[in-house]
């Protein structure tokens, strides 16, 4: 089936918007939840604010990663090599956008939960900061894995 170049462009723009638009929801929620818990923790233990802020920032770097993947796929779709023209390619591009967008929601929220409880934990037991950091990062790495699956499938779909 003959597909016009403008239809390909439309599909690309739509997919880039879906990827970044949906993908931003989860990470933003996770980041905000972590910072709200950190504020609560600092209100309870103001003398430990340095440790709490450090924990919050390290965890937020991890829970922001899925939205960076979304950004990457959006940029790839917008400025990457032009795809071949065809009906299958149109749907593959749309699929890549939905895949990375929706796939980034869960890990963003989940990593934010882990980060929030770690901030809470530092306020409760400032001495076990290193153990908390280790457990938090291990859990976030596992929770991150599904966004990496989504990234892989989105990459595969863009090169179909």
């Amino acid at each position: 089936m003959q597909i016009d170049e403008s239809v390909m462009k439309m599909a690309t723009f739509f997919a880039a918007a879906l990827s970044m638009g949906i993908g931003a929801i989860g990470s933003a929620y996770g980041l905000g939840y972590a910072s709200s818990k950190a504020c609560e923790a600092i209100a309870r233990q103001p003398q430990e604010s340095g440790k709490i802020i450090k924990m919050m920032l390290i965890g937020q770097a991890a829970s922001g990663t899925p939205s960076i993947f979304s950004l990457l796929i959006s940029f790839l779709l917008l400025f990457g090599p032009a795809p071949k023209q065809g009906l299958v390619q149109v749907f593959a591009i749309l699929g890549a956008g939905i895949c990375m967008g929706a796939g980034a929601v869960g890990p963003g929220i989940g990593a934010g939960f882990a980060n929030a409880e770690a901030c809470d934990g530092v306020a409760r037991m400032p001495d076990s900061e290193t153990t908390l950091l280790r457990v938090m990062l291990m859990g976030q790495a596992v929770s991150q894995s599904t966004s990496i699956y989504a990234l892989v499938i989105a990459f595969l779909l863009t090169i179909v």
Partner: protein
Amino acid sequence: MIEDALLVKELVKAAAVLGAGICMGFGAIGPGIGEGFAAGKACEGVAREPENANLITRTMLIGQAVSESTGIYSLVIALLMLFVI
């Protein structure tokens, strides 16, 4: 007639690639949230009883592995739709 058959084949492939994207995308939401929730509660547990950190970490990883399974089902189905159909 031959043109029709080609079009149908192309339509099936198009639906399969869109389906692969939807499958992996929405399939990744649940495990991501669930595993993060487990990690969060594990952090809470370590903060309450730091001497049991190893036991808590082990339990967290076992629970996360179980929760990961649905994400892997999505991955398998997405790869099947991409390369088999």
